[in-house]
């Protein structure tokens, strides 16, 4: 605490700070963010935080301090995409049997589809099918959508304007990822060229028959445009 105070002379002003137009001292801002992140089960963005704080606060700076403060503690300040959350330290999971959430067992198809979406996003259904060599069942996609691990991204600007899938903030939160760039082995896969979209040479058989994209388009447009 002393450290942060020393870094910021305004912090010395303390909670007595009177001026209407001056933001509260950084130490005070840190307390506010601490309280808000503790109170929320969902990650909060810097903008969410600042919207609830007095005028002129700088959530980003206060977060740097707060994050440091909780290093090595029983709970931690974690980054989830452009948001922040407090989560228990993973090494203490054994204490939380009571809080453990029974998770639905995902099929191999669902797990693979999820991984493909995460590593290749934004990716169309046809591309997923090309990679897996089989058609993607509607149920698999629905399940992932329902778990809020994937969502519809922008339509691809190619003929048929197929929808794409991307992973969500909930996905990042669930797997403790700061952002999609932190996916395990992403860099290696990329440098090995395994994430390239390499079109098959002329005479390759299309591994998947039919094209369900059109059906999907009709049904899911609404959701997609909600974004």
């Amino acid at each position: 605490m002393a450290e942060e105070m020393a870094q910021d002379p305004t912090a010395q002003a303390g909670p007595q700070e009177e001026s209407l137009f001056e933001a509260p001292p950084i130490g005070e801002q840190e307390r506010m963010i601490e309280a808000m992140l503790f109170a929320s089960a969902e990650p909060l963005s810097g903008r969410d935080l600042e919207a609830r704080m007095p005028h002129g606060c700088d959530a980003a700076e206060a977060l740097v301090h707060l994050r440091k403060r909780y290093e090595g503690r029983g709970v931690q300040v974690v980054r989830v995409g452009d948001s922040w959350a407090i989560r228990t330290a993973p090494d203490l999971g054994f204490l939380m049997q009571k809080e453990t959430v029974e998770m639905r067992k995902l099929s191999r198809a669902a797990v693979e589809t999820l991984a493909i979406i995460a590593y290749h996003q934004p990716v169309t259904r046809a591309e997923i099918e090309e990679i897996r060599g089989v058609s993607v069942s509607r149920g698999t996609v629905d399940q992932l959508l329902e778990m809020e691990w994937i969502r519809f991204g922008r339509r691809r600007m190619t003929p048929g304007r197929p929808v794409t899938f991307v992973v969500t903030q909930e996905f990042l939160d669930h797997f403790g990822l700061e952002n999609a760039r932190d996916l395990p082995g992403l860099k290696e896969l990329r440098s090995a060229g395994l994430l390239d979209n390499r079109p098959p040479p002329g005479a390759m058989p299309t591994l998947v028959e039919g094209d369900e994209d059109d059906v999907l388009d009709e049904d899911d447009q609404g959701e997609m445009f909600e974004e």
Partner: protein
Amino acid sequence: MAEDDFEEDRTEGQSVAERLAAESLIVDVDGFEGPLDLLLMLSRTQKVDLRKISILQLAEQYLAFVEQAKALRIELAADYLVMAAWLAFLKSRLLLPPDPSEEGPSGEELAAHLAFQLERLQAMRDAAAKLMARDQKGRDFFVRGLPEGVERIKRVTYSATLLDLMQGYARLRTKDEFRPFVMDRDSVYTMEQALERMRGMIGFAGSWTDINSYFPAGWETDPVKRRSATAATFAASLELAKEGKVELRQGGLFEPIELRRREGRDG
């Protein structure tokens, strides 16, 4: 950890690969997610890095598998057969010297792409395993057990201007001037008044009585008043009959209308 698991899985697969390829593979075709999955499985029997895999050898393995399936009279799904046909074509391309007059990609290009597909599928499976081996929310780390929602407080402020106020007042004070045309009449006896009067009296109406007898005092003679009283009393009588409180009868056209209290079913 995920990687270890996977490596283990892989070596295991290799150690029994021959048997798998020869027997259970065939019996359990349904266990494969399509030809690519099967090809990936077969490729493991080559015990080499996927990058160094021999597509020619793999094609032969696959075609042998399809032959065996036919010998065992196992029905293969159409896409397995399409793949078999394509691999046979690929094999011939790989074996024959290239024909410069031929259009399209070379056998090597096709083989390279198939190798790429297999490697990519394997990479995605590895990635999926690594992903699932991560610490997961609700299993390894936890969210706030007692979240406090943000309480939404709605505050409504009402506004009115001086103009609103004055217009409101002006509206009130000039109401009479602006009200729509109505006939001002003093001698109006309303149905509500008649109802009120009759409700108090019907308790005594055991026998048939002319409804005219329910007119309020002083309304029988003046014709204007009488007309209003007749209409109101008649309407009120109908209302009471509808409520089941009285019975009405009339001897004939223009005969007096009579009323009596209704008591029970056969009163």
